[in-house]
């Protein structure tokens, strides 16, 4: 039995929105090389909606699939809707993740949120209302396990 769902494999083998946006409106980076996964999200915002999104990811198969899925989920959404994307939603869209890979889905949502923060800060609107999850995540700066 393969460890990953067909959906995860699809997004791993054919990741959507890989790359970088020059002059992005917001950039969010989470994770670090020591932990083994790192994601950078770039967004373009138009009329309060995510007009374009790209990512670069260093990490395992799950981390890459999560990044791809998060980018798809974010595209075209309003910033408020983007804020509401939770790791559980990402995992569900991917038809599940192995137990010890759930932290990857946290990272995806975090990176996207950080890109929105960055956009709002650049607009002079401050980081905006951070979700509770984001505030909690920021406290957990060490490598997550499982």
């Amino acid at each position, binding site marked *: 039995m393969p460890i990953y769902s067909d959906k995860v494999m699809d997004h791993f083998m054919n*990741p959507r929105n890989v790359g970088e946006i020059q002059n992005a409106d917001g950039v969010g980076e989470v994770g670090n090389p020591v932990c083994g996964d790192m994601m950078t999200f770039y967004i373009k915002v138009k009329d309060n909606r995510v007009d374009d999104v790209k990512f670069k990811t260093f990490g395992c198969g799950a981390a890459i699939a999560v990044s791809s899925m998060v980018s798809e989920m974010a595209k075209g959404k309003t910033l408020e809707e983007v804020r509401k994307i939770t790791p559980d939603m990402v995992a569900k869209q991917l038809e599940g993740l192995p137990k010890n890979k759930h932290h990857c889905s946290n990272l995806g949502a975090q990176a996207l949120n950080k890109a929105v923060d960055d956009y709002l800060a650049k607009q002079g609107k401050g980081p905006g209302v951070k979700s509770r999850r984001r505030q909690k995540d920021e406290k957990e700066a060490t490598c997550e396990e499982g």
Partner: protein
Amino acid sequence: MTKVYLDNAATTPVLPEVLEAMLPYLREAYGNPQSIHDWGDEVREGIEEARGRVAALIGASPEEILFTSSGTESNNMAIKGLAMAQQSKGKHVVVSAIEHFSVLHSARTLEKAGFELTLVPVDKHGLVHPGEVARSLRPDTVLVSIMWANTEVGTIQPMAEIARVVKESGAVFHTDAVAAAGNIPVDVGQTGVDALSLAANQFYGPKGAGALCVKRGIRILPLLDGGVQEGGRRPGTENVPGIVGLGKAAEMAKMGMPSRMKHLTALRDRLIDGLPSRIDHMMLTGHRTQRLPGSASFCIEFIEGESMLMLLNQKGIAASSGSACTSRALKASHVLTAMGIPVELSHGSLLFTFGIANAESDADHVLESLPPIVERLRKMSPLYDKFLKQERGGK
């Protein structure tokens, strides 16, 4: 699609001759070897023949061989059983920093039971220096365990020199030879080893069959309490087909060893010599020459091992990695860490282990398939991005 199995360190396939030798013991020869009738006698004969073959493989006497369920069981029994049997002489145990978990965790269990533990460091090639072993020895050291060869990086230890240092101190010397036995010459008599663990599935025998060699005169306590099997040291009804398979695999390994080693070394070197000219920013892990014949292990920068394994699998290639993400516990490999390899680099670990069924074309398949995989993942990697930007900025 061409399927190429290069994960022989995980387990080797069972040779047809080994399977043939085992089959009668799954069919008509079903007796219990302890029984006093023809059914028992027949099976007992099979076991004793296997014992002789395993002893011959490692230069031991048949009565020094105990059959177990695995390398893990052999290591558990050796570490716990040998230390506990000698504890009136002292309660200090020494093992290397790159041991298999079945040795390391057994040693930790001893620590909880009141023993003291010293871990011997290794150098950047994964070599244990006999001088470092000597430095770790104390008057109350009762057991030293240093693995013969490391599965993950392939490095083979200078066993005879290490054994000499340990024997001078009077401590008992055990070696985990699970990766070595059946693959390279291993001789307990010549080397001066007191106890040695091996497993059949590392040299074309079945899974679930291991052995522990305990030299005559060395005391050991059993892990299990029970009946008279294996002289009471390893009770439980014998895994007869497994034992017979182990014996057959040992016989074939002994006969075929020189040609197997020559074949595997050529395949390994083809990869070790060929990959660095096709992929930049990568390194060989382990010793260049003092290494297992079939083992080619690397760390590749800026990308992660599990993603490489998944893409290799898509190309029909089975390999493995010491990357944290591939381990269930998500911990970086303690072997690579002990060798001083930075954690961020150890995430890019990749291990190819050839077996006797592999051919040159299998190595070539890797040489062709891996570079585009690395390129694809690096294109996606923010680390590689940063590195390129820094490089451009620096020029």
